[in-house]
Each structure stands twice: as C-alpha cells, then as structure tokens.
C-alpha cells in the first residue's frame, strides 16, 4: 500500500504511523458526558471510503488520508494541522 505524502511522494505504508479515524471531531470541553463517550469510544468503521490520520515517520507531517478500507486504494492525502496552509508547494 503506497501513501502519496505531499512532501516525499508515494512511499510504502510501513513508513507511516496510523493515528486513526479522522471522521470524528472533538466535542467542546463542557459537552455532555454522553457526547464525550461517543467521541472517545465509538467509531463509524465503514467498509469503503474512510478518512483517517497517518503520520509520515520520514518528514513528520501529519496527513489526512482518504482510503478505501476494502481495496486499500488511496484516494487522497493532504497535510493537516498548523502547516496545512503553507504546505501546498512544500515538495518543490
């Protein structure tokens, strides 16, 4: 499985660390306990398209990867976090 790191180009997936499901957003700090429980424990766990966080061990970039969990086909990969805005031309 190759993941196209925007910095480093397509690299073998074992160069990356899987962080997990990127489809969840953290609730507000004072959100009810049930909402937090859902955030911490529940997963949509789809068969098919899944958005998930990976970190590239080489360049340390945290990436949001859109991948098919049945075919392992990677549809998209983008940098997230504070460097996302300036990362567009980073590999050039």
């Amino acid at each position: 499985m190759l993941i196209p790191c925007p910095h480093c180009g397509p690299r073998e997936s074992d160069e990356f660390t899987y962080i997990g499901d990127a489809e969840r957003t953290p609730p507000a700090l004072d959100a009810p306990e049930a909402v937090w429980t859902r955030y911490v424990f529940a997963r949509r766990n789809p068969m098919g398209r899944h958005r998930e966080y990976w970190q590239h061990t080489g360049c340390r970039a945290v990436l949001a990867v859109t991948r098919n969990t049945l075919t392992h086909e990677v549809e998209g990969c983008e940098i997230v976090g504070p460097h996302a805005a300036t990362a567009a031309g980073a590999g050039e």
Partner: protein
Amino acid sequence: MKYSALALLKGALGANRNWPRQWRAAVPKPAYDAIIVGGGGHGLATAYYLAREHGLTNVAVVEKGWIGGGNVGRNTTIVRSNYLLPENSRFYELGMKLWEGLSKDLNYNVMFSQRGVLNLAHTPSQLDGFARRGNAMRLEGIDAELLDRDAVGDFVPHLDMSPAARFPIVGGLLQPRGGTARHDAVAWGYARAADALGVDIIENAPVTGFLREGERIVGVVTPRGEIRAAKVGLAVAGSTSEVMRLAGVEDLPIESHVLQAFVSEPLKPIIHTVVTFGAGHLYISQSDKGGLVFGGDIDGYNSYAQRGGLAVVRDVASLAVTMFPNLKRVRVLRNWGGIMDMSMDGSPIITKGPLPGLYLNAGWCYGGFKATPASGFCFAHTIARDEPHPENAAFTLDRFERGLVLDERGAGPVPQHH
C-alpha cells in the same frame, strides 16, 4: 450417524465412499424461534448450545459464505485462559472446561491438544507482571506456573537462551492446560452437532437487511428470502459494524482490522508447545502436519480486506528467527488475513440489545477462537433467557459509557488490544 471406531472401520471397508453429509443443506423456513447471523465458530456454538442447553431447536444459522470460510478457519488455533482480570479469566476458564470435554460433547475429534502456552518474559519487571497474572489466575483456580530462565530453556529446547540476545529471556509464565485445537474441526463439529439437534444451517445467505416492527427486529432479509424470528443474534466478527448499520445502529465501539497468520512448510517435530515472544508480538506452535503456525500483530489500520501488507510479514519472520535462530531457512508456505472486530478495551461484547429482538456478540479482537465454546454457551444463555449468564454479565455494550471497561492491559481506549 454416531462417529466411533466401529464407524471408522465400516467406512474404511467401504473405501470411505459411504460417509453421509455432516449437516443438511437446509432450505430456509419462513420463520424460526431464533436466527443466528454468522455461521462461524461462535454462531454455530451458539446454535448448538441453544438446542442442547435450552431446548430451542427451531433455530437457523445464516452464513454469508460457507461454514469454515471465515475467521474460524483463519486463526492460529491457540486456546488459553491466562487472563488477569477476573471477568476475563472466569469467562475463558469456562471456555477451557468446555474445550476439555468438547470432542466427546460433539462426538467429533476437535484434536484439542493441551500442550501448554508459554509467555516469555524478557525483563525482570515483565516477569514480575507475569507473577502477578499467574497469581491472579491461581486465585481463580486456573493453572499457572512461573518458570525461571533455566526452566524455560529446558521446556523449549531450541529457543535462543543466550544472555547476549537482543531481548534475553529471563523466564516465562506457563499455562499447562492451554494448547491448540483443530479449528476446521471445531466449525464442522459444532455445525454437525447443531444440525443433529434440528438446527438449520443456511449457507450462502448474506444478511442484506432486517425485518422490523417499529423498533423491534423481527427477522432478516437474505437473497434466499425473508426469514422471520422472535430473536435475532449477531455473531459476525469483523462485519459487525456493517451488519449493525443495516439495523440502523451506528457507531459501535469497534474497528475492523486485518490480522495475518502464517504456516511454514512441514517440518519434523521441533516446537511441542505454544510459545509467545514478550518483547514484540509473536505466537508460534507446530501443527500435527508439521507446519509451524504463527502470527503477530494486526496490520494496524482499518481494513476489510482479508489480506495484509508485507511489513507485518517481515516483522513476524524476524521475531520468529529471533526466538528460534534455527528457523532461519524455513520457508513460509501460506499466509492469509482475517478481519478482526477490535473493541475499544480489548474485551468482548455479549449482550441483549441494543434493539429489542436483537442480541449482539462481538468485539473479540484477535482472541476469538479460544472463546468459541464459552462465547456460544453464554450467548445462547443470553438469547434464551433474556439475561446474561454470570460469566458474560460484564461484557455489556454500555460498559464504555458507565466507566466499567475491561482493559486487560490498562492501555486506554484504542482498538489495538488483544
């Protein structure tokens, strides 16, 4: 027919041409008292114990593929009950006791071999942890022996016991009653025994939807027709999230991950027990055919593909050679993957609900095979009596919101436990 030495002899005299089918190719009836979705080990065991323990014989097992094609035929066949938490150790020990009588119960040789399961410790603190777990097991009446370095070396002759090893072995925790069983025989044995008690086993019938009356689940939809039932139990392992979505239940505390397993070319007897590496993750044993059967960690990312990546192949191979340097030139014959229902605390869910008429059995991570008898026994009890058996009372779905997680390693809410 009852299997016996006499039956074998008769079969042999007839050139083994006259053995009857082990179970009927059942045609689905319009309605049953209970339907079990998933004809894996757990589903078949559930149907068997529903019939045997609770007299509920008007039961169907609907399986999307064929019997033995899923995780029950994809594991490394290890059976053990060496857990720390009382809720887990009691449950798995109930399973161990069922394993010990299983071949007789089913009139089917499941080749249960109590060859021992040895966990290796590589640091003094790890050995301390094993002593604690061993003591916890003994308090529950489960056998456990703490081995020092020399005892480990004597017990498993080919291990690299060198003090200069990268992860020197300092001792181990042995459960002598642990071991292995023939996984296909477990599936076939339960299927045959359930069928003999009147259970219909319906293969090639993936559930594509549920029949509902309001909130209540009253049956399933399959390509072989609609089948109604007062009670529908789900035991579908890695497909749990997808099948539950058909019932309108989203966001379970489960992720599906691929776990690979490996078999080497057949060798003369070399490893007579089950050994697990403690400074990484590897478990290895030798089948009666001579193949080394081994596996390691899950690939680590969400997956429904029954195949994994080469990184795990490399890790597992290097760990095997680290433990047993004489395996260096052994060739791997086959490897494959199965989809694990990784729960968020590493412990299973066997519960009534979450909808009326529905019962859920899931979250086995990669320890489902050894649980097969206990899982079926407790799930059958839960379905038949509408209340949990004492040994699965802690395996609820709401334990996550109630702060009652069963986190064997104390490692927090991640779907990576085993």
